[in-house]
């Protein structure tokens, strides 16, 4: 019996078209656009100016505040300008634009491919190195990793859970790094265990990646305290709370963080980035991005420098298909539809998915037929049909009472609804407004 979470869940078609494709290196573009806000929290402040020359891995923007992250240059060249550029959402955001010249790296970065398994740093040094390297959650949430490694006073971490689930259909970037960088991931897990002072780590992997499970099992056998846990293929198994429930059978209470049950969760790509930061002095400036879609000529997994325009990775996969209906940054369940492909790849970009016109349009929506299928699939045990109606009528007090703040915005409800109701659209709107009301009340 494979472990899984108990309440709700769906099983969308997996469509892992780029499964098993070896990681290719995307050529460095002519220009990169690096946004100052690629993470949760305050945007970083630029410490370079127009005309400066920078090297790969050089710090170009400093974290401004406790919940913030450093940003490093992903290329070597000259700073062309620091300006507001329209990003994928259509709104202009502050970005640093660098004209690329050569590929010169910072001296202290260890470029060799040799695995470094010496754990020479202590807990505080590790956390400092992680902070310095600007590591954020690479699963898409982009929460600063160093903050996660420092539990608030009064709570202790007991177990580290690595999220290698990759439950979104189509995406295979985490899968590819597990196959090619397995050793580094296990060492990275050890490093984080040391930083958190825990003896136990569990790596949760969905059962549709048997090669990765086998490979990591082989490596983990040689290390103490690391357990590989295969999980049933169900969406949203990769949701933090669902992962914790499946692996250690504890439910994070409503409104609380995972540390409340002694767990710290890190995405497996973040673990790799932490390995590279601590062992190789390499800050976060590149990541694996999956380019996929049924009409894409050659879906694949590419190692991309942060700031590369999205259209470059689409070109590498065969160019933008003629029947493109939607371009999504991320997976089909929680990704964002992009308005323009000149926008850059950021730390949170796990994939680029191209849907054709037939797949892109929503069906016409009808009145609720009270079938309760949305209630069946909600992993948080909420009532999406009710939350949507309350949000449409702006009844914020009742939304709060009906626990809308518990919603993890996974999209299972909208996916399932036979009446094609825009459940998550309105729930998100209601959640934003209710959150604002709660914050206003606390002041």
């Amino acid at each position, binding site marked *: 019996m494979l472990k899984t979470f108990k309440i709700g869940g769906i099983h969308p078609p997996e469509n892992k078209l780029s499964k098993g494709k070896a990681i290719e290196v995307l050529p460095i573009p002519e220009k990169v656009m690096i946004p100052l806000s690629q993470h949760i929290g305050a945007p970083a402040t630029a410490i370079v100016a127009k005309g400066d020359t920078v090297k790969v891995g050089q710090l170009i923007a400093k974290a401004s505040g406790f919940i913030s992250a450093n940003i490093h240059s992903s290329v070597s060249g000259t700073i062309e300008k620091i300006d507001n550029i329209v990003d994928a959402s259509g709104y202009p955001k502050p970005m640093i634009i660098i004209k690329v010249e050569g590929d010169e790296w910072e001296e202290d970065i260890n470029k060799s491919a040799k695995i470094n398994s010496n754990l020479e740093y202590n807990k505080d040094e590790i956390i400092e190195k992680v902070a310095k390297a600007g590591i954020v959650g690479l699963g898409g949430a982009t929460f600063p990793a160093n903050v996660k490694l420092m539990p608030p006073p009064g709570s202790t971490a007991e177990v580290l859970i690595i999220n290698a689930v990759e439950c979104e259909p189509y995406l295979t970037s985490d899968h590819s790094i597990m196959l090619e960088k397995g050793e580094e991931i296990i060492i990275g897990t050890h490093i984080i265990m040391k930083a958190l002072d825990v003896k136990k780590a569990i790596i949760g992997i969905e059962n549709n990646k048997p090669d990765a499970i086998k490979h990591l099992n082989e490596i983990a056998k040689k290390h103490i305290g690391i357990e590989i846990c295969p999980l049933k293929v169900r969406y949203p198994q990769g949701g933090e709370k669902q992962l914790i429930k499946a692996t250690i059978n504890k439910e994070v*209470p409503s409104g609380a963080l995972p540390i409340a049950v002694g767990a710290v969760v890190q995405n497996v790509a973040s673990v790799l980035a932490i390995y590279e930061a601590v062992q190789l002095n390499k800050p976060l400036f590149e990541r694996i991005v999956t380019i996929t879609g049924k009409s894409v000529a050659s879906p694949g997994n590419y190692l991309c420098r942060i700031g590369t325009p999205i259209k470059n990775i689409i070109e590498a996969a065969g160019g933008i298909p003629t029947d493109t209906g939607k371009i999504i940054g991320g997976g089909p369940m929680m990704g964002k539809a992009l308005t323009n492909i000149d926008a850059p790849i950021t730390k949170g970009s796990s994939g680029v998915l191209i*849907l054709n016109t037939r797949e892109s*349009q929503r069906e016409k929506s009808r009145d609720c037929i009270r079938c309760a299928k949305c*209630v069946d699939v909600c992993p948080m045990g909420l009532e999406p049909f009710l939350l949507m109606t309350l949000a449409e009528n702006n009844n914020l007090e009742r939304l709060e009472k009906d626990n809308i703040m*518990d919603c993890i*915005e996974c999209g299972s409800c909208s*996916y399932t609804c036979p009446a094609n109701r825009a459940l998550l659209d309105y729930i998100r709107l209601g959640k934003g407004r209710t959150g604002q009301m709660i914050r206003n009340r606390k002041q």
Partner: protein
Amino acid sequence: MNNIFISPSPHVHSGDSIKKNMYGVIIAMIPAMVLSFLYFGLGAFIVTLTAVLSCVLFEFLIQKFILKTNTTIGDGSALITGILLAFNVPSDIPLWIVIIGALVSIGIGKLSFGGLGNNIFNPALVGRVFLLISFPVPMTSWPKPAQLSADAYSGATPLAMLKEGIANGESVASIMQANNFPTYKDMFMGNIGGSLGEVAAVGIILGLAYMLIRKIITWHIPVSIIGTVVIFSGILHIIDPVHYASSLFHILTGGLLVGAVFMATDYVTSPMSKKGMIIYGIGIGMLTVIIRIFGAYPEGMSFAILIMNAFTPLLNTYCKPKRFGVIKKK
């Protein structure tokens, strides 16, 4: 890039639709329909056809000309109301009564509340109860089924025969062993008097299995209704087998199976949480047995379902689904 779409996530859909669910229910009703045609002959087919056509036609006419909105006859829900209405009437009922029933079901039971999703009561049952009270004699004169076995059974339903017998002072056992009373096998296979839908238990059970496999409904409502009837009538039977029939008898007769599987499980009028569904089912089961045994009518299912339909909004408010991350206070 000018024809790309932008919308909030999720960007994929399961492909499920109202149509798929409704036509799935219709497919599940086919075994019972076919058996009713076999037992009751051409009359059954004509009544079913009339009911279906009237329901669809009335929905189209009312939506297009009175309400002036988009017509929704393509989604299959009017079809289902028609078939269920036909399941609830005798096969030789005058067709004009069927047409009136269709008008009441669709016009009053469904569209006056706002159409699919907004009605409080099961439309087919609204029509059926209206006909039962307005035209009691045609609605309770059951024809003989086409003879598939050698013995000719009378046209009355087993429940009616039982109630009449008990009122006359006979014991249950003696009623059931009489020559003109059907055996359990007859009840299961449908060789008994009754409305189109209530005779063939085997057809309904096949339909239930199909709907469960296709995940159109869940097991909670049918099992809680049937379970409650079994337990409640079973207790009564154990206490006094002379006056109260066995649980098996109650399950196989009357509209219990068709009600538990097709009527009570109607999406719109049943509760939305599992806890609510079970309480709903228990309520229906208890009311059915009470009306059957202590009430004036031999059959209680339709009234029981309509009464519990009225409780559905209350059950929706107070029976919430199990939430993630709620710690039970010890």
